[in-house]
């Protein structure tokens, strides 16, 4: 097929690079920001599984934080957390340091 494309005998449809939406920033949609208490967290991974934005960051099977580039602030993680380790805070009232937490 690559040969046909080169010869101009075949026109490709609209082809998008796999996973290229990952470079977009949907964090600007957010009104409420999830703040995780990682000491309270029991790393059950329910928030990771239930997050529509793939925004829960995991390293070595443990939750390490939220990717604010993607998080739209829907609050599913806070509602589903079985140990209440996530709190949704109004982002406009938060300092930059608080957001990192």
């Amino acid at each position, binding site marked *: 097929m690559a040969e046909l494309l080169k010869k101009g005998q075949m026109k490709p449809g*609209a082809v*998008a*690079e*796999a*996973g*290229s*939406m*990952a*470079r*977009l*920033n*949907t964090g600007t*949609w957010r009104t409420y920001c999830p703040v995780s208490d990682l000491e309270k967290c029991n790393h*059950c*991974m*329910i928030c*990771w*599984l*239930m*997050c*529509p*934005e*793939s*925004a829960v960051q*995991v390293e070595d*099977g443990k939750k390490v934080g939220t*990717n604010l*580039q*993607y998080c*739209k*602030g*829907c*609050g*599913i993680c*806070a*509602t*589903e957390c079985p140990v209440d380790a996530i709190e*949704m805070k109004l982002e406009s009232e938060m300092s930059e340091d608080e957001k990192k937490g």
Partner: protein
Amino acid sequence: MATTSLKQLCEMPDLLSGGHAACPGCAGPVAIRQILLAAQQDDTYVVASISTGCMEVSTTVYPNSAWRIPLFHSAFENSAATISGAETAYRSLKKQGKIDKKIAFIAFGGDGGTYDIGLQSLSGALERGHNFTYVCYDNEAYMNTGIQRSGSTPKGAFTTTAPAGKVEPGKRQRKKNLTAIVAAHDIPYVAQASPHRARDLMNKVQKAVATEGACFINVLSPCPRGWRYAPDQTFQIAKLAADTCVWPLYEIEDGKLTINYKPREKKPMLDWLKSQGRFRHLFTPQNEHLVEEIQQDVDREWQRLLTLEAMGKETAQ
């Protein structure tokens, strides 16, 4: 061996990236990620097609794609026809010795693209018996164009084309029972699932992928915009759907029906109707009779499933 263990799954590559444009609180991307994680394991790769719909417009905004698997979007009505072609080409290439990878073919469609517009192409693909799995994510209306009624919209729900007012009570007709229609094709595997019970959904996907022949999974996908509830409640709503038996979780393997979740106490339809703004108008004196009708419809379907399950057990003995 395919796994559904969360500790293992979270180490696997994420096959649907963030940065997509689905509304906050949408259950669609969650269902798709769970499905892809369950399907693309060990030596199996996934190739998918998707019909036009919420998940297509929000995850493939040109010139980008959120999918990290080969994905084909053709049109609204032919997700099943597209995957039939891909699967047939794969079989031919395999016969010719030009490909040796193991590929699971999955077609995605919303309720508009499955219950209504794509029903004939789905029916055709099921009848021809291609080796693929069709996944319908059912959000019960045409949500990406702004909440128009579909064959899947339940009775009494408000949509912009089945409005609620002084005369109209929202949609007058019942929801089409697509899972039963698909089961009538006598395909080897049919299931109904919901992303709030992730392990159940992922088990069903793995069963479907491992089954030779056409398989179908109908997945409930609560929609905060169209159903009118707060976005953080998505999986609580999904849970309520299972607890009120509005969305029974069951599977049919070679004609044998098993109900995978029976609520300890079947909750009344009132709980379900009151949880969402799209049913708000039902609680007026002129529409009260509808609540009773809706309860009867749900009870009848639940009873039908219980009977079918009992019949399957009897014939096995």
